[in-house]
């Protein structure tokens, strides 16, 4: 069996094993899930090491017949492959999952079996989204990955879980179904479902068509990211989800949106992206500031981090639609960074919640004196999230702002404001949780983090420092693919400016 099929479907096999194990054997269930995700993580790292970032081609490609659409004889194929746009996402998904599974020891105590099944199914769905290189297969995984989170929030979530889960599902589905129409239109227009071919040919469509198709795709992805004004589902879903659900949601699921914008927006419709870039940069920049303001106003720590997600993903979109080399590299790296920092933040909030059973900011204070190890990790994570130089967040945000400045200085300046606001709400929240006098009796005798909790965070902490000091190897992974994308953008830019120059000529002709 080839590597990518193995990596994608191994979690599903794990899910079947869990399904066949009696529900009373909780330890075995957890062990199966952990071992499965660990093996996938190892496979992911191996894939990363094998991957050649200088090449723009699809690597480790798998191509098998799946089915043929009747009448038109358009072949839908089982095609997987990895390139510079997806490699980091795949590795992130693979590496993050053991951490997530380990974190469930602390907060998932009922219906463990079902939870593990959904977690593993979700991993297959997410990996499939990043690896699929056939449009139908992509759509298939895209919708399938909705269902596990729906159950996770709905069964193991907080008090308003039903509201949150329905909102999340319907919101995302509405976008997906509009995308379905765009997918169908694209496939029947070019009579192929192969993403590589479509990417190469879609640029030849006339601009109006490109714009409509782009809009169809971008709506689904913008909801998923979520971009302003579609962000309202995220705060609810994050707040109500169990810790591990939040980590996956922030760490990987939201990246499906930004990844989609990159592959099916920028890469597939460069001219339309160029046309709409000002809009998306504006939405990104406003999202950065607006998300930061939202976060400042929160009293629930988890909701605060959820709002900070809106802000951080604004950077990703801002950098991507700057459509410059630096912006694109930065936004790809920032997707990983956000997964690490926000994932860690949710883990830490989950750990404190397990001890205090509250997330209200005013219930804390002075925790640093009772939980010094926790305090260290929280401060570290907050600094990584606030983009302190030397940690991962800095590299990504710096590149994004640089790229944005090259394209549209105004939005870059607004984005820089966001950096400041971001530091404000993160540091204020940290101060209120960790420092000052211990005002609540319950906070005096809190148990510090145990070995499991430290261990599960360590890989991410190491990654955060590593990316902070040595970003080049990570950035290099997408070099070849970004060269290819940039070439397309330059072509489209040339065509756009040529069209602008031609226009006055034609009016002159009319006058003549």
């Amino acid at each position, binding site marked *: 069996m080839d590597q990518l099929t193995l990596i994608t479907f191994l979690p599903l096999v794990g899910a079947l094993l869990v399904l066949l194990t009696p529900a009373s054997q909780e330890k075995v269930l957890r062990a199966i899930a952990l071992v499965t995700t660990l093996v996938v993580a190892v496979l992911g790292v191996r894939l990363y090491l094998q991957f050649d970032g200088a090449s723009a081609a699809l690597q480790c490609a798998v191509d098998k*017949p799946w089915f043929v659409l009747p009448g038109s004889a358009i072949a839908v194929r089982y095609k997987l492959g990895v390139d510079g746009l997806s490699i980091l996402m795949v590795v992130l998904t693979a590496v993050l999952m053991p951490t997530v599974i380990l974190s469930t020891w602390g907060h998932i105590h009922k219906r463990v079996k079902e939870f593990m099944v959904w977690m593993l199914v979700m991993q297959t769905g997410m990996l499939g989204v990043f690896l699929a290189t056939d449009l139908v297969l992509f759509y298939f995984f895209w919708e399938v990955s909705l269902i596990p989170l729906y159950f996770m929030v709905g069964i193991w979530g907080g008090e308003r879980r039903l509201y949150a889960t329905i909102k999340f599902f319907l919101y995302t589905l509405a976008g997906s179904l509009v995308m379905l*129409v765009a997918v169908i239109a694209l496939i029947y227009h070019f009579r192929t479902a192969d993403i590589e071919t479509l990417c190469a040919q879609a640029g030849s469509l006339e601009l109006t068509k490109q714009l409509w198709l782009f809009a169809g795709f971008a709506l689904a992805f913008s909801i998923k990211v979520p971009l302003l004004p579609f962000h309202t589902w995220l705060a609810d879903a994050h707040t109500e989800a169990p810790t591990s659900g939040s980590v996956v949601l922030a760490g990987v699921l939201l990246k499906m949106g930004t990844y989609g914008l990159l592959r099916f927006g920028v890469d597939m419709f460069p001219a339309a992206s160029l046309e709409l870039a000002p809009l998306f940069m504006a939405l990104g920049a406003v999202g950065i500031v607006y998300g930061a303001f939202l976060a400042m106003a929160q009293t629930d720590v988890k909701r605060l981090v959820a709002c900070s997600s809106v802000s951080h993903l604004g950077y990703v979109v801002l950098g991507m639609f700057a459509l410059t080399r630096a912006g694109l590299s930065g936004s790809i790296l920032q997707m990983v960074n956000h997964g690490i920092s926000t994932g860690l933040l949710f883990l830490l909030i989950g750990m404190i919640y397990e001890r205090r059973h509250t997330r209200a900011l005013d219930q804390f204070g002075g925790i640093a004196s009772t939980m010094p190890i926790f305090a260290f990790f929280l401060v570290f994570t907050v600094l990584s999230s606030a983009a302190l130089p030397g940690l991962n967040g800095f590299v990504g945000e710096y590149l994004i702002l640089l790229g944005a400045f090259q394209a549209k200085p105004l939005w870059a300046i607004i984005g820089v404001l966001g950096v400041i606001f971001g530091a404000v709400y993160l540091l204020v929240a940290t101060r209120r949780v960790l420092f000052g006098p211990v005002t609540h009796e319950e906070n005096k005798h809190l148990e510090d983090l145990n070995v499991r909790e430290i261990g599960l965070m360590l890989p991410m902490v190491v990654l955060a420092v590593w990316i902070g000091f040595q970003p080049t190897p990570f950035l290099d992974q997408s070099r070849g693919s970004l060269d290819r994308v940039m070439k397309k953008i330059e072509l489209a830019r040339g065509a756009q400016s040529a069209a602008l120059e031609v226009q006055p000529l034609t009016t002159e002709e009319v006058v003549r």
Partner: protein
Amino acid sequence: MNPQDLLQLFDERAIEAVRPLLALSAGLIILLLSGVFDGLKALRGPIVVATLLFGGWLTASNFVTQPGVVLDGTYSADRAASAWGLLFVVATLLAWLFSHHYYAEDERPFQLEHDVLMLTTPIGMMLMGGAQNLIVFFVGLEILSIPLYALASFRRSRARSVEAGLKYFLLGAFAAAFFLYGSSLIYAATGTVQLAEIKAIGIHGPLALAGVALLMASLFFKISVFPFHLWVPDVYQGSPTPVTALMATGTKAAAFAFLLNAMFMLPAKAAVLVAVVALVTMALGNLGALAQTDVKRMLAYSGIAHAGTVLLVVAGTLAGDPESGGALHAALFYMGAYVFTAAGAFGLLALLERDGERFTSLESLKGLAHRRPVVAAALTLFMLSLGGIPATGGFLGKWMVFSSLVRAGLIWPAVIGALLSVIALGYYLRVVIAMYMQPASDRDAATQSVRGASAMPATLAAGVCAVFVLVMGVLPSLFLDRLP
């Protein structure tokens, strides 16, 4: 016509084409006879199953050999008609399997009549699906409808069932009258009732158009399309659940099979009108379903929405879908997935019902995932398929319907239809929420799951449905490659 001609009409090809009908009729007669002799009572079940399997096998062989249009151009047994025929047989078999343990003790003595009536319906459906002649269709329609009227009110001790039968009968009679009147107008305008000849002559003039309008009204009634859908919720809810399953799947498929054959009568200009009617049907079905607290009634409304969705392919064809057979493929696959999904869902409800209507309410499904995890998982699968989520047959059906619209250039109807199906997930998910995310009330936990254990045939049928729904979603080439 003298006897000689009649014999000539029944040539080898014709015999081959009508073999499934003959087999089903023969089985029907044997079943009736078995009721006369006490010793044969135990054979009733095997006779029904054997008849349907044999009929299905003959239909499948027609699918391969394709006898084509026979009997002076009135009946067709080509690939399409045979594919539809297979669906009818499957739908009947599933409904019968679900009915096996459904009825309460006091209704049991009439089980033979029930089985006879049920076995009559696929004969009618096949005639409808293969009809190339308005009168042949009408005969099929009546052969199907009259047993269904009786079946709908089969639980005669319950007011709702009787009401369902009466309502269905009265409105069905109107629809039949519409059809006859429409046919007569078309005959007056064109001088023929043969579809092929009508097609050659074309529909011109107000008389013929009025006839077509009446004809369509009657068909829309059968497939429950706006504005002829109002009978559906009451009839579906009041009828015994296995009969509801048969009405929702078989009847609808049969009417669609003929609608696809007869849609050439609609002028191309009607494309937008049909699309609007279909979208309104979807909207009304989905919004109606959203307000329900009873799952059976909710599925009835969802059936209306699905009828609207399939009707979209007619709009696509009228608007000039460049792909020949696009509508047929989409409708066949969609209805195929729907037969397994809806029959499975109704069947599981029948399994849960035990006694009376209470167990079809959303309330009583709460906590089902604990009490009966497999049933809950299967019902979840059916709900996702009805909602058109990938990895189920429902997804590809929806894909094909929308792609027919997109190819024909009807982008906006496709987008609106897509958004309307988001509403549908709103109520399908409510069923899942009740089963998995809400605790059971004590009363239900104590009383349920007594009878289900003994209902082997129904469990088997539900399992088969689940397998087909999954296979159609994951390995669709098994079906797609065989589409006519």
